[in-house]
């Protein structure tokens, strides 16, 4: 349709001749697959922002403790970790940091895979790899915090 004809299409619009209804893009219809009828992406978007704000404190605090205070990285050792994980406060700090950072990072990578992997198969398998690595890392890290044994030897 040329520009002139679209101008004439709006001529005479009034109460008796209303403008044609334009469907909003991506409106949900009977043909929309069930899997896209949830608000998952909205919750993901909100989670990225809320977890990000909490992670500022947790991760920057962690880096300050590990790399700056008390001699920096030179003091890190098994004995140092034993001293820190003797306190439920630092166990909880590390546990929350582990879960939030992993889920925040994994959700971010999911977005990036969706952006760049164009073939359906590639996208599917990259995400399976991501989810497997994420579940493995979160479970391992959680297990390590809860089963830590200062007298292992």
């Amino acid at each position, binding site marked *: 349709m040329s520009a002139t004809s679209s101008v004439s299409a709006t001529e005479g619009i009034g109460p008796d001749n209303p403008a044609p209804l334009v469907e909003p893009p991506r409106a949900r219809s009977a043909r929309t697959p069930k899997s896209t009828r949830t608000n998952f992406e909205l919750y993901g978007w909100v989670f990225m922002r809320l977890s990000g704000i909490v992670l500022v404190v947790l991760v920057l605090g962690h880096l300050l403790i590990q790399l700056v205070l008390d001699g920096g*990285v030179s003091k890190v050792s098994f004995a140092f970790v034993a001293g820190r994980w003797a306190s439920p406060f630092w166990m909880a700090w590390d546990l929350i940091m582990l879960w939030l950072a992993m889920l925040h990072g994994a959700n971010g990578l999911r977005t990036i895979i969706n952006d760049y992997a164009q073939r359906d198969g590639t996208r599917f398998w990259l995400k399976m790899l991501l989810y497997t690595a994420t579940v493995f890392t979160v479970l391992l890290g959680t297990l390590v915090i809860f089963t830590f044994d200062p007298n292992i030897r």
Partner: protein
Amino acid sequence: MPAGTLYRGREGMWSWVAHRVTGVLIFFFLFVHVLDTALVRVSPEAYDDTIAVYKTPLVAVMEYGLVAAVLFHALNGLRVVAVDFWASGTRYQKQMLWTVVGLWLVLMAGAAYPVLGHAVREVFGS
């Protein structure tokens, strides 16, 4: 890609690129980091021998890079949140980006000695 069609955004696009790259870097580090921390369940020696790698001069430089990535991602992430939730956020996004860059420079200068000091002493003696 045909010549002359590359989209070159301004501050907004480049800060988005940097946010994406730093986010991926931190995620990959975290994966390795949980594995190295898990060595505390193997033996104190296994953990201490691996953590010794963190104390070498070359890795100290990489740690400074990690600090750079985390600081940028954290500060710019707060800017993204401000753009999304603060009514005037979009109007001030550029000023906020330069605030982020300024804060980042100050914090990086402050982190230089604590993170790199031991590496400099080891390489240049004393």
